[in-house]
């Protein structure tokens, strides 16, 4: 083909490997997600707590500044508890970001019935989901484990006493805890987005899917006088998991302290359910029916 000659010529150049096709979807997905000013705004907001944490770490590590601002209080001690709080804040802000981005990644394709044309190219259903999943996980990484590990590195650098080697588990906990959360969250968000055609409703549905089962679980526990209903409470489960990964001593309501096996079983079940929903929805829409 030629723009000027207006005739058709077959393409005879090189082609990329099949395994790279999901990366095309991820690249265009990232571009779509980050093309919105609201996304940029949400990311900036999500990073503000890190700036506050950074200031607190500076104060904690600078004896003069600490003396001037908070006196001899231990409030500003940078330890597992400090990073647990930072992680909780970042991970829940990631939920807000995911609820905004995920529908943008999927709803445009569903709204305009683009799946038949997308999947008529050499991309499988799995490749399609993988591409969108990568885009979402990368987006959420910017506000979770990446800034958290940067905070950890700053603490390693700023601490006046040897600190790093005694607290390496915090680094592992920050990465692993955030990774587990954003992997599960991404699958939940994509599944919900594939189910709901309208973006605004999808955003609301994502919050509902995370928090409504928690309420139901609370009711089940109260009515049946059992603690197992709390297994439906994803926020509680994640907090429990983060506490363990950061190497903290358990605290809070002992009824909510489940075994790691129970926590991972629930998270895996949620992930599998999300994958099943995604597969069913995309399969239903990959061809035009009727």
């Amino acid at each position: 083909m030629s723009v000027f000659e207006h005739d058709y010529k077959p393409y005879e150049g090189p082609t990329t490997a099949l395994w790279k096709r999901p990366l095309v979807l991820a690249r265009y997905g990232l571009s779509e997600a980050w093309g919105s000013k609201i996304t940029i705004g949400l990311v900036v907001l999500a990073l503000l707590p890190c700036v506050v944490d950074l200031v607190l770490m500076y104060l904690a590590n600078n004896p003069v500044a600490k003396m001037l601002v908070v006196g001899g209080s231990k409030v500003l001690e940078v330890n597992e508890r400090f990073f647990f709080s930072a992680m909780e804040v970042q991970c829940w802000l990631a939920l807000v970001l995911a609820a905004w981005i995920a529908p943008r990644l999927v709803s445009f394709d569903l709204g305009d019935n683009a799946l038949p044309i997308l999947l008529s190219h050499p991309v499988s259903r799995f490749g399609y989901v993988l591409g969108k999943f990568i885009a979402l996980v990368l987006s959420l990484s910017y506000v979770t484990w990446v800034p958290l590990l940067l905070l950890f590195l700053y603490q390693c650098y700023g601490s006046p006493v040897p600190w790093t080697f005694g607290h390496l588990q915090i680094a592992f906990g920050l990465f692993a805890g955030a990774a587990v959360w954003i992997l599960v969250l991404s699958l939940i968000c994509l599944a919900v987005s594939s189910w709901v055609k309208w973006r605004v409703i999808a955003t609301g549905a994502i919050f509902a899917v995370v928090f409504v089962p928690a309420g139901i679980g609370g009711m089940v526990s109260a009515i049946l006088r059992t603690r197992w209903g709390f297994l439906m409470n994803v926020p509680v489960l994640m907090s429990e998991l983060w506490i363990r990964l950061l190497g903290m001593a358990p605290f809070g309501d002992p009824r909510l302290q489940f075994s790691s096996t129970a926590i991972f079983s629930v998270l895996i079940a949620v992930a599998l359910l999300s994958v099943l929903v995604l597969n069913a929805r995309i399969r239903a829409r990959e061809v035009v029916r009727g």
Partner: protein
Amino acid sequence: MGVIALDRLEVRLGGRTVLNGLTGELRGHAVGLLGPNGAGKSTLINTLLGFHEPTGGSAKVLGLDARTDRMRIRQSVGYMPENDSFIGNMSGVRFVRYMAELSGLPPSAALERAHEALFYVGLGEVRYRKISTYSLGMKQLIKLAQALAHGPKLLILDEPTNGLDPTARQRMVQLIKEIRKEGSMHMLISSHLLRDIDETCDEVLILKKGNIAAISNIEEERRSHRNFIEMEMTGNTEAFAEKMQTLGCECARFAGGRVKVVMPDALSQRDLYMTAAETGAEIRRIQTRRDSLEDIFLRAMEYDGVQARPAHEQAFVGGGKG
């Protein structure tokens, strides 16, 4: 080797047999896919693209098995779906580039080909506009552009003129003819408009209730029926048809007294009048014309069995109602 080879292909969806043991080989450069609603046209296309798994038999596209080589098939095929299917939030050039990259073109080559494809189909001036602002005709053209951009070996067009006004339809038909003439790719065109298929295709596959009703080479069909005569008659047309067949003609009767006759070179129109007079039939109207795709289609719809024979054998096999 044919472009598409079907061997006892059976597809069941929701417990219902949609394609029932299709067997045949399509070799034409532009193959028309015809059939009434529910005949299985879309199911066949979706099976060829690997969206539906054959429950029996096999289908090969460009020598690749639709069951095991679906990614390689999709690599070699450009598909233009019937319904609206695009990302309305994207500009035309970005959408076509996206699709080309999904087909394996490197980003820079994909961008170049996207521009070229859009100019080729006539959307060059609107390529930076969002697709959601395009008219229906433009949306059809952008689907064609994305199907062409990666230089496929087989182009599958599902109802390409659907919903187009006469000018846009003519433009689309012209484009298809140009692509066919260029010759580097094969085409499978599904349409319910016989005229579109007639103008653009050299071979036709007619489906009926999930079976192949006919596979016909349109060009050969036309060449084999130079003495094709259509008449409107009253009276004893049955006796007329039988008499003409004894004279060596192929004869078919249709509703409303329509009779079609293919005469050997030794006979002339005078013989028609003489036979009509002998058998008590009256010729009210007579015209010489070439066999049209409509005739092939109507004949195929009248048969219950499979008609997949060479064109010279196929004409009036069974004699229609006659």
